[in-house]
């Protein structure tokens, strides 16, 4: 069987504690993954500066070339993994088997990660607003306009406590390596695959192995990563986000509550935007924080709900190998049933209508897993409890709300697509601080422009601008003047 070790800044470590990753349908073991105890992490991270030092031996331009090569290796090559190797097909199969995502979606996520790696130079150019990346490498330099600037790395490593349910999140930590910041990754229990494959591709492309630490493990490992590292990302539910709110060391990514808002000026033509609404709700099995969980409009909401339901309601649970499979399985026992229980409770409220009801039962229970089929719910008011819910499957409410009240009522929104040409409202939307990514016009919430920052800029998170003054002589000596 495939055995995957802990990776301690490039050194494989075979732990006495191993977690068996199992196939969600057959229950067959797929791999044994070594588990890191918290002490290992705390101790290793004390030497994290070595990861940054190793990366700084390589000029950023050369690192970017290696990353382009890694993008191809990640997507196409048979790469070392633990005591074996892994082809791209193996990867998609293994990821699907443990997470419940259909295989074609796993391949889609591979393409997404590879795209980000291939276009890393452009992405960094945009994230840094055109700053010479050598300034970040050196810590100081002269901008094009002739001013000395300094950006100081706040941590030699970026840590990430990763989820099991959304392979799309990996794009967020990829820019660390060309910024010469090492990686400390704690994979989700069902999704060790992406961190290991990307690290393997990086190493095969010539990036120093000392830059990568991967610590599979339980809650203790996650807590140790967060305690030991000065800059960490964590992915979780609302309580996780609340717990780390205000902690400058942690960037917490939670539910997206992404929405589409239809302006009064366009809502009578809502049918023109049906495809965008369906794509935003349904793509990637609705698992991402960028999937739409609420369509808001002042009128026609019952018709909109019915039309979306007609399109997504009939979707069936298909085997993961089926190229037409649109739904991911819930692999954690009891989770789908519990989610459906919460939805059923909300459906009892006045003003709440289940638009997908006529397409049959939403909860499909299999021997070792369960599915939830797409669910569209109409709310006659934002006050309905279900109007502020988000679930990990194609689920959306269609909420009736006057345009004038929408910004106040929508709550936190990771991606807000506002379809309108009402300039006054666009101004208000642009000023609204509880919308993170704002799309103006008919853009699906799921269609991200990689040249834009996501939930805060990673550059701002990892580097801090500060004063840096040098004498004329030193600047001349360094060739900066």
């Amino acid at each position: 069987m495939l055995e995957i070790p802990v990776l301690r800044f490039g050194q494989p470590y075979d732990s006495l504690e191993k977690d068996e990753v199992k196939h969600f349908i057959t229950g067959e073991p797929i791999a044994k993954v070594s588990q890191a105890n918290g002490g290992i992490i705390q101790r290793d991270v004390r030497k994290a500066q070595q990861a940054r030092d190793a990366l700084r031996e390589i000029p950023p331009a050369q690192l970017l070339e290696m990353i382009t090569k890694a993008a191809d290796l990640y997507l196409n090559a048979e790469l070392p993994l633990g005591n074996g190797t892994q082809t791209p097909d193996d990867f998609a199969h293994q990821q699907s088997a443990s997470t419940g995502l259909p295989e074609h979606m796993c391949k889609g996520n591979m393409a997404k990660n590879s795209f980000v790696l291939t276009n890393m130079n452009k992405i960094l150019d945009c994230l840094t607003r055109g700053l010479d990346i050598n300034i970040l490498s050196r810590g100081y330099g002269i901008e094009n306009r002739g001013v000395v600037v300094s950006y100081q790395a706040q941590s030699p490593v970026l840590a990430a406590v990763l989820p099991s349910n959304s392979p799309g999140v990996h794009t967020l930590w990829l820019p660390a390596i060309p910024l010469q910041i090492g990686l400390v990754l704690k994979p989700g229990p069902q999704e060790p695959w992406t961190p290991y494959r990307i690290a393997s591709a990086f190493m095969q492309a010539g990036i120093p192995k000392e830059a990568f630490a991967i610590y599979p493990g339980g809650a203790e490992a996650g807590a140790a990563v967060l305690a030991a590292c000065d800059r960490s990302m964590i992915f979780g539910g609302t309580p996780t986000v609340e717990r780390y709110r205000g902690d400058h060391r942690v960037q917490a990514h939670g539910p997206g509550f992404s929405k589409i808002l239809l302006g009064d000026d366009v809502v009578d033509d809502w049918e023109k935007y049906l495809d965008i609404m369906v794509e935003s709700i349904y793509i990637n099995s609705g698992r991402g924080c960028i999937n739409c969980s609420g369509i808001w409009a002042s009128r026609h909401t019952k018709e909109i709900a019915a039309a979306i339901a007609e399109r997504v309601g009939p979707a069936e649970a298909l085997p993961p190998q089926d190229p037409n499979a649109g739904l991911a399985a819930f692999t954690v026992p009891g989770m789908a049933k519990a989610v459906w229980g919460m939805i059923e409770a909300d459906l009892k409220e006045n003003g709440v209508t289940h638009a997908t009801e006529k397409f049959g039962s939403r909860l499909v229970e299999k021997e070792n897993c369960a599915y939830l089929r797409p669910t569209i719910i109409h709310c006659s008011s934002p006050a309905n409890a279900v109007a502020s819910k988000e679930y990990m499957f194609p689920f959306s409410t269609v909420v009736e709300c006057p345009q004038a009240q929408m910004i106040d009522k929508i709550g936190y929104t990771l991606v807000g697509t506002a379809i309108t040409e009402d300039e006054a409202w666009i101004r208000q939307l642009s000023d609204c601080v509880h919308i993170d990514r704002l799309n103006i016009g008919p853009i699906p919430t799921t269609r991200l422009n990689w040249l834009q920052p996501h939930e805060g800029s990673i550059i701002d998170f990892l580097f801090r601008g500060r004063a840096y003054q040098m004498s004329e002589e030193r600047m001349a000596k360094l060739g900066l003047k």
Partner: protein
Amino acid sequence: MVAVETLSADEMQSRTKAAREKLDAHTVELVQWHFHESTGCPFWLEQKAGLNFDPLTEVKCFEDLRKFPLFEDDWLRGGPARRWVPKAYEQSPTYIFETGGTTGVPKSRVVIDDFRIDYENFSHTLPDEYFPKGANWLMLGPSGPRRLRLAVEHLAQYRGGISFCIDLDPRWVVKLIKKGWMEHLEAYKQHCIDQALTILSAGHDIKCMFGTPKLIESLCLELEKQGKSFKDTGITGIFSGGTEFTPQWTRFCVEEYFGGPPEVSGIYMTPTYGNTLMGLAASKPVTAADGYKISYYAPEPRAVLEVVDFDDPNQVVDYGATGRVKLTTLTKEFFVPGFLERDEGERELPYAKYPWDGVSGVRPYHATASATTVGVY
């Protein structure tokens, strides 16, 4: 050098049989004690009236204890505490040791001398080579109304040394975790480690210690930050315990913090399993050759650990099989005729030094594990 002792099958069988006979006799003696009007405590004498059997005539061996309903630790909450004091000890100085209590009323156990007896017995399992007689101790564990603080102090005194303690309130630690105040949790842990480092730097010639796994780890990490190693403390013997004391954790400490196995590093660490309701279960020697496997053996006949079926607490599982840990306590001060611990593990064969069943792989019981908060203590 602490080696694993092996015996011939015949010798092992003979020791096991003798131990069982001793347990049976001890059980009968203790049940007579706890259920006789002249010696028993008010709690058990009152319970006796509700039993559908007469413990004085119908308990003839250990197996007969299965006639009792399972012990409920909720009975230990609230007063009057004296209802647990056997009549024979009415005039004796009495301690109260608490467990839990982060919120609500803690569970309390009355003790007269048991903690001393238990830790004296445990003392005989410690190798003098690493726990030298006369050496001073560091108690890097909970203070307050806990048995452990006094018990470790008594252990040190029994072995001719003095115990230096830190102040540690485990209830506050659990509250910090539940509130999600991780920064405060780290600060409190550091506060504990600072106390330990102060004691260690004060010329007390400390050679032995008790520590919780998390605090031992933190102490080692802090020493490394100061450019030192654990060996520099001069401590050669450590005893610790709890479900966090896993084979992997042991290996990590031995290989990375202590500098190798005892014969190389001169540092010996032994795990223990116990709580306020029982004495202290010692461990078979833990070795790299055995994958750092940890097997615990209760201090029979004063306490018995069984690994029982998850659905039938009267059914012991097969050797090597997994089940819930069930505790029976049989001392003159305290009678627990079968209590389901919040832990599970695998049933182990008797060992030469402890010729009765043991339990390995102890971890939180899977059905309640997610609700359990494990603090620095």
